[in-house]
């Protein structure tokens, strides 16, 4: 039997074997076959039959999605049903078949092209996206023209998703349903949001496969090897067995990681530290805890917006937060209010394109501009706080006035709830992200006003060093160990300690063993990161004496360059603790 191996980029490790579910992107026929007039009547009947079948499928999906994640989310399928029975769509199809005397496939492709053109000419980005709804419906209809070999479209069965590309919203929606074995995409890379989500949910994924969607069809069987970035189509038995072995090895590696999860988070000299997870979906709490996370250090609430096409209401927010609080209890959950704007734009928010988004309307600036929306989120967070394990985290604070404003609004919302006799945590801790250099510079003042700091090192370093690390021309200048960065971090930590408030780091520095050790030396005891990095950071921190690291870092800060600092720290740490920086037996290329 013939089989194909296709190479891409492994973006989420692990191995899966299963059936293909090809999404969207049906290639429409470009062949115009003429038919007789009699035949055209049959052809129209064939299309109507396909339409009837499509309707049944959509109703079924709508019902299931509604049961699974709420009626609100199944709404889009109602729109699809209405598009399907739209008179203008049907009459256009009928006309094509009966007047042009051509096959139903051709008729659909023509109508598809026409709507594509209309939607392309729309300038409003959000409404333009509705194009995908129309193409979704037409693709389904097209597929149903051919009698399906399989008994029934079973979208609930565990499948391997094969697609051209997945938008973060689609990915979040699909992965949240929990029946995805693996992902294989034509496009995408390791830093895409879909990749991040796949990693945190422990779903193997290979991206950048270029034309995998053209090589497989629904019902094919695939091996997706997310560790080595390979996809094997219709593997013969011997190959299946080889990969089953590989999967077993990977599974035992994961078990090893889980053993690490049970070890105490404590340095050799008995200094306790705490490792938490950065997540985007409430579903991620349990996988993160199984890797040893002791709380959710950062919940990126903007993902509630990414999963839908309209604005979420208070109940939508509340459902997510209360599930988070429940799954994590008694461990803490730090909910960061929306960080929208910048490069994370949302069509439903209608934020104008800005010349300089990183310096523009984003995060708390959006919330303070659209206070009603902010209040909706605050009310939902408060209502979900009855277990007293929720912390409120405000992003992108630049000046004291913003904190005052947030406090006023928070007070108003609390009073509203009290008047309605709704229970909530009256002492919900209020903290701020320190990620703008200005906030870092006045962190002594801010520390008197808030309950904790969370240092977002990615943005803080980007703004402080004036380096966009995604820009290849300057990314080599993005140096977390730049002496100026270390001074700034030390300043923030000292100010927090002086006021006796908690300080944690939730940027990528937390996930890098060397940087995490330096942070430990600077006095950080709480770290939050993508959960898959928790085991390796735990091993690194457990294998050192904190006292010793503090001395090394203190001395390192007298050096002039990031390079000197790095060399010195590595040399000294390895001398004292030879195993600290070993990234042992990690069988994956990240």
């Amino acid at each position, binding site marked *: 039997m013939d089989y194909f191996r296709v190479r891409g980029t492994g973006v989420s490790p692990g191995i899966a074997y299963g059936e293909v579910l090809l999404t969207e992107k049906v290639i429409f026929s470009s062949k115009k076959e003429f038919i007789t007039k009699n035949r055209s009547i049959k052809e129209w009947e064939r299309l109507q039959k396909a339409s009837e079948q499509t309707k049944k499928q959509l109703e079924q999906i709508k019902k299931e999605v509604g049961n699974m994640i709420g009626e609100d989310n199944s*709404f*889009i399928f*109602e*729109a699809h049903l*209405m*598009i399907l029975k*739209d*008179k*203008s*769509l049907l009459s256009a199809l009928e006309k094509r078949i009966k007047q042009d005397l051509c096959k139903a496939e051709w008729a659909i492709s023509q109508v598809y092209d026409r*709507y594509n053109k*209309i*939607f392309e000419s*729309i*300038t*409003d980005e*959000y*409404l333009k996206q*509705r194009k995908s*709804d*129309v193409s979704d419906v037409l693709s389904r209809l097209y597929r149903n023209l051919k009698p399906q070999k399989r008994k029934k479209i079973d979208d609930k069965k565990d499948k391997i998703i094969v697609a051209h590309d997945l938008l973060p919203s689609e990915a979040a929606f699909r992965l949240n349903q929990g029946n995805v074995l693996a992902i294989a995409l034509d496009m995408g890379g390791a830093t895409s949001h879909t990749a991040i989500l796949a990693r945190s949910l422990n779903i193997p994924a290979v991206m950048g496969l270029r034309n995998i969607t053209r090589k497989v069809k629904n019902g094919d069987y695939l091996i997706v090897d997310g560790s080595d970035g390979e996809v094997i189509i219709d593997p013969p038995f011997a190959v299946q067995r080889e990969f089953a072995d590989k999967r077993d090895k990977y599974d035992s590696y994961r078990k090893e990681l889980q053993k690490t999860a049970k070890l105490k988070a404590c340095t050799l000299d008995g200094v306790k530290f705490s490792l938490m997870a950065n997540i985007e979906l409430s579903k991620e709490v349990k996988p993160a805890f199984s890797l040893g996370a002791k709380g959710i250090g950062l919940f990126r609430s903007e993902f509630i917006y990414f999963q839908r*096409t*309209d*604005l979420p*209401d208070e109940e939508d927010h509340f459902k997510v937060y209360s599930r988070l609080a429940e799954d994590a209890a008694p461990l803490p959950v730090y909910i960061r209010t929306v960080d929208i704007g910048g490069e994370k734009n949302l069509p*439903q928010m*209608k934020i104008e394109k800005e010349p300089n988004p990183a310096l523009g309307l984003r995060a708390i600036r959006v919330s303070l501009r659209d206070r*009603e*929306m902010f209040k*909706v989120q605050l009310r939902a967070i408060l209502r979900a706080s009855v277990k007293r394990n929720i912390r409120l985290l405000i992003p992108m604070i630049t000046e004291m006035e913003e904190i005052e404003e947030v406090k006023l609004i928070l007070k108003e919302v609390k009073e509203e709830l009290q008047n309605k006799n709704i229970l909530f945590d009256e002492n919900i801790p209020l903290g701020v992200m320190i990620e703008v250099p200005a906030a870092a510079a006045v962190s002594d003042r801010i520390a008197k006003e808030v309950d904790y700091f969370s240092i977002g090192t990615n943005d803080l370093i980007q703004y402080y060093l004036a380096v966009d690390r995604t820009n290849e021309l300057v990314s080599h200048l993005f140096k977390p160990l730049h002496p100026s960065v270390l001074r700034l971090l030390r300043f923030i930590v000292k100010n927090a300690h002086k006021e006796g408030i908690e300080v944690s780091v939730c940027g990528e520095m937390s996930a890098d063993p060397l940087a995490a050790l330096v942070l430990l030396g600077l006095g950080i005891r709480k770290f939050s990161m993508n959960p898959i990095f928790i085991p390796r950071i735990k091993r690194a921190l457990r294998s050192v004496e904190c006292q010793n690291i503090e001395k090394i870092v203190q001395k390192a800060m007298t050096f002039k360059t990031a390079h000197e600092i790095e060399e010195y720290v590595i040399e000294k740490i390895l001398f004292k603790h030879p195993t600290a920086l070993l990234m042992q037996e990690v069988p994956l290329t990240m």
Partner: protein
Amino acid sequence: MVTKKITVKNKLGLHARAAVKLVNLANRFESSVKIEKDGNIIDGKSVLGTLTLAATKGSSITLRIAGKDEEIALESLEALINDKFYENE
């Protein structure tokens, strides 16, 4: 026939959810419902037509309704649009 010019006030304009509400309501009446924007006229009983109209916030549309129940149809549709499709923003 009755006609009325209305400004779309809700944040997202005639997006999918609003379009579905509008079309569902329009279909409850016997009268024909046409919507005009910038010279384009579409069938207000068609969700595809309504979406392709691309009526964003602040755009002005004209309802043209003709039939037995045109008065009540206009009144109901106007209320829906003015109430921002019962959305919270």
